[in-house]
């Protein structure tokens, strides 16, 4: 809380957008056909054009542009329709647009600028009047209209927008979505994000070798719903359950909030192997050698997969089917083989917080229904390493709302590094993705040396 104020000031949370960042001046463009118009016709022309030649997929493009000519006179230009610039071919002008052109005598526009005035931009000559590349504009050829370029996609950032407007004005709506954080985090939220990330990091290094960890959090209550480390192999030589509980059940979230310096670790741990981080090396399960018991490995039990399993188990425990009491359902859970866990490793839960929650549900049955979660709708998940494609898709299925990770995964990262699953529009659910840049001193104490190396490597790739 307060004691984390200094830390949260140094934590950086970066939104990883749906499409890869493009340098502002390299944005893709499309051609449209434009013409100069008389100001008195502007309103009616725009209205008619929007009706007969809507700009499909270009809602961010403004239909009208005002350009200041030399001598201080303003000239209006309007986009007539989409254009296609096939070498030398004349753009097809829809009949209705052609009618408008004739009606409003748009063809009479012939400013005698000719080839005399131009500006140099990026080595090309542009018409002085409309900034269209020389020789292809109406001012050069005295034709009624000409092709110009406008930006194909709406700007995501102010920088992109400013660059776009140099071509043709666009509108800019800072992304709002309905997901908190995309437009920034409050200090309180940053501090909370940092705390949960630190919990994940502490779990990731709690085993003899560093593994990935996943923590599922309900941001509205700031409760840990479920969590897990990788269980691709039994990485933990301390197989006694108490350690597992404190390390992996997430029950220590409260303690965590009071103990900001949770990440003290001995320097002997600094030299650790990172071969066992499942999402970094999904295909490496065969080569990993570490404290193996014959029955304690599973190539698919990445941290997220197990965390989802734990949250589903919690869901079944706290919100049993109608007609069952919570106790009965808990009995069911114990008796029937744990679904989805072939390894019989699921422990009987005696999480105090869960019990409290369940008691509350008991006292107020109606509350139970309204608070019953649907999968992980509305929940956040924290990863130490960017998840692989399997895990990234698993959390789509489970309806996670926001994903936070500390380190990118250049091998198989699915949220920006290799794939960008958050940009697959066909999926039936979308989450927002953030990278948490841990403060320097935490990085130092945690000293995930390889992670930092991997990090640098990715930074180079992406820039």
């Amino acid at each position, binding site marked *: 809380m307060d004691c984390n104020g200094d830390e949260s000031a140094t934590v950086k949370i970066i939104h990883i957008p749906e499409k890869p960042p493009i340098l502002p001046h390299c944005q893709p463009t499309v051609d449209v056909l434009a013409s100069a118009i008389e100001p008195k016709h502007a309103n009616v022309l725009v209205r008619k054009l929007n009706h007969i030649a809507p700009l499909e997929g270009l809602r961010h493009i403004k239909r009208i542009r005002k350009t200041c000519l030399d001598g201080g006179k303003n000239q209006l230009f309007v986009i007539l329709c989409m254009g296609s610039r096939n070498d030398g071919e004349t753009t097809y002008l829809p009949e209705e647009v052609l009618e408008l052109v004739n009606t409003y005598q748009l063809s009479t526009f012939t400013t005698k600028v000719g080839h005399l005035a131009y500006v140099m931009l990026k080595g090309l000559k542009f018409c002085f009047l409309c900034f269209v590349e020389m020789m292809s504009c109406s001012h050069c050829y005295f034709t009624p209209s000409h092709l110009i370029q406008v930006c194909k996609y709406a700007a995501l950032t102010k920088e992109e927008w400013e660059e776009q407007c140099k071509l043709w004005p666009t509108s800019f709506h800072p992304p709002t979505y309905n997901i908190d954080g995309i437009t920034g985090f409050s200090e309180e939220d940053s501090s909370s994000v940092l705390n949960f990330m630190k919990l994940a990091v502490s779990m990731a290094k709690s085993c003899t070798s560093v593994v990935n960890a996943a923590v599922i959090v309900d941001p509205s209550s700031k409760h840990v719903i479920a969590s897990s480390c990788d269980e691709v192999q039994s990485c933990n030589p301390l197989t006694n359950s108490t350690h597992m509980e404190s390390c992996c059940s997430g029950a220590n979230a409260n303690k965590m909030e009071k103990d900001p310096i949770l990440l003290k670790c001995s320097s002997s741990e600094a030299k650790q192997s990172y*071969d066992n981080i499942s999402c*970094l*090396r*999904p*295909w*490496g*399960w*065969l*080569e990993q050698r570490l404290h*193996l018991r*014959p*029955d304690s*490995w*599973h*190539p*698919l039990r990445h941290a997220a*997969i197990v965390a*989802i*399993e734990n949250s*589903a188990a919690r*869901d*079944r425990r706290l919100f049993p089917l109608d007609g069952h009491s919570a106790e009965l359902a808990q009995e069911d859970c114990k008796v029937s083989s744990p*679904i*989805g*866990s*072939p*390894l019989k490793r699921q422990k009987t839960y005696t999480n105090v917080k869960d019990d409290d929650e369940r008691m509350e549900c008991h006292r107020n049955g109606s509350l139970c229904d309204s608070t019953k979660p*649907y*999968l992980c709708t509305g929940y956040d998940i924290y990863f130490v390493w960017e998840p*692989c*494609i*399997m895990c990234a*898709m*698993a959390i*789509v*299925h*489970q*309806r996670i709302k926001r994903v936070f990770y500390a380190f990118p995964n*250049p*091998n*198989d990262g699915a949220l920006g590094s*290799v*794939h960008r*699953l958050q940009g*697959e529009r*066909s*999926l*039936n*659910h979308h989450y927002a993705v953030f990278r948490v840049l841990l403060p320097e001193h935490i990085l130092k104490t945690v000293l995930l040396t390889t992670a930092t190396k*991997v990090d640098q*490597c*990715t930074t180079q*790739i992406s820039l």
Partner: protein
Amino acid sequence: MSEVDVFMKLALEQAKLALDSLEVPVGCVIIEDQKVISSGRNRTTETRNATRHAEMEAIDALLEQWQKNGSTREEVALKFSKCSLYVTCEPCIMCAAALSIIGIKEVYYGCGNDKFGGCGSILSLHTDSSEKLASGGVSRKKGFKCTGGIMASEAIDLFRSFYEQGNPNGKGDGEHFFRPGEACSCPCAGQPILVSIRV
């Protein structure tokens, strides 16, 4: 009836079991040496775990069995490399990744999955791409042979039945496959056919 059809029929039977349990009807079988060695069906509703797809169920059952028999990881990897999976619907991105991770030999599927298919529809995780692995990345991506369209109409018929009887997770009258504000709410059945058969 070809061998492929015989095995796909078994997968369809698994899908029917799912349907009977009010689950999204997807089923699969795993074949080794012409013999069914594992099967699975969707259990996402029962488990409230949307990752419990048929493929994951069948893989987990197999791993449990092999580990019980004391197989080493090397032996398990070798066995997987000789196995074929028959599934009624194109594996989703998650399952396709999982099948690649375990190193399955080949996959036959029924209908395609235009919303989250991982074997060609959205991503192609089955193709053996020696993608840019960062320095030190020892992992070897494994592809697998993939053939779609096996008895696809039977698989789609099951989805249609499910659609008509109603999705227990969806709100509404047995016609709704969609939760408010969401696209298709079933984990592995985002096939466009489901949208288009709506009358």
